[in-house]
């Protein structure tokens, strides 16, 4: 099969084609981006992928298919707690399509105008655990109250879809 040098590798009708970063495959890349070799990642478009379990991955989309299976390069996992976030480097990700909720293009201009603050990974992990624990505590009290009043409390907020 002749996959061609310019297009995506899969035939598909999904709307993902525009999001694939094909600039690495361009033969004229050095003339388009003179600093390309020196600092390749500066020019590549970053995407945020939200997964069904709530994780947010940020990386460069390199390939996809009709199921929205995705390949992300230079991926980081970004954890948000309140107005802070922390990044964990993850490398290359192959995401099975069923776990994809949403795929968004990051606008670098908007990126500069957020009031979010980056904190070290260790701190964000602690904050994330605290948030989870306080949420579970609240949930427990709520369920206990409901149970005392005769309501069924077999409902668990987990992966609903």
């Amino acid at each position, binding site marked *: 099969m002749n996959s061609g040098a310019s297009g995506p590798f899969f035939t598909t009708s999904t709307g993902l084609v525009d999001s694939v970063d094909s600039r690495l495959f361009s033969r004229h890349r050095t003339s388009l981006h003179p600093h390309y070799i020196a600092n390749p990642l500066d020019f590549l478009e970053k995407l945020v992928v939200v997964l069904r379990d*709530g994780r947010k991955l940020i990386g460069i989309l390199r390939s996809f298919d009709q199921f*929205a299976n995705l390949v992300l390069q230079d991926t980081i996992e970004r954890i948000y707690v309140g*107005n802070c976030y922390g990044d964990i480097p993850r490398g290359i990700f192959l995401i099975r399509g069923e776990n*994809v*909720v949403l795929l968004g293009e990051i606008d670098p201009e908007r990126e500069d105008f957020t009031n979010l603050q980056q904190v070290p990974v260790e701190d964000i992990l602690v904050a994330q655990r605290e948030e989870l624990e306080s949420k579970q505590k609240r949930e427990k009290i709520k369920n206990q109250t409901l149970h005392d009043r005769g309501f069924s409390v077999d409902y668990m907020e987990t992966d609903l879809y």
Partner: protein
Amino acid sequence: MLFYSFFKTLVDQTVTIELKNDLAITGTLVSVDQFLNIKLDNIKVVDEARYPHMITVKNCFIRGSVVRYVQLPSQAVDTALLQDAARREAAQPSTAQQGNVRVK
């Protein structure tokens, strides 16, 4: 395929997509495919403060399987026509695979 054809007529309209994780996104409908995957442009998230990861996103692709509701502008929908088309598709299952087109 009826709703695929239907959504194609709504391209360029402003719609609000509510996802199964309760995230609601308003934006301009750019494209839709046979899985009802949706692309939105100029997006705005309802209750933005709860979803800090969406602040920097300007356009997005939403997988059809995670959509719960699509809120449409009422003036863009001809419900009588849609009902009629749905009846016709239900009456002729053989055409169901070929979209909203009659086969002679």
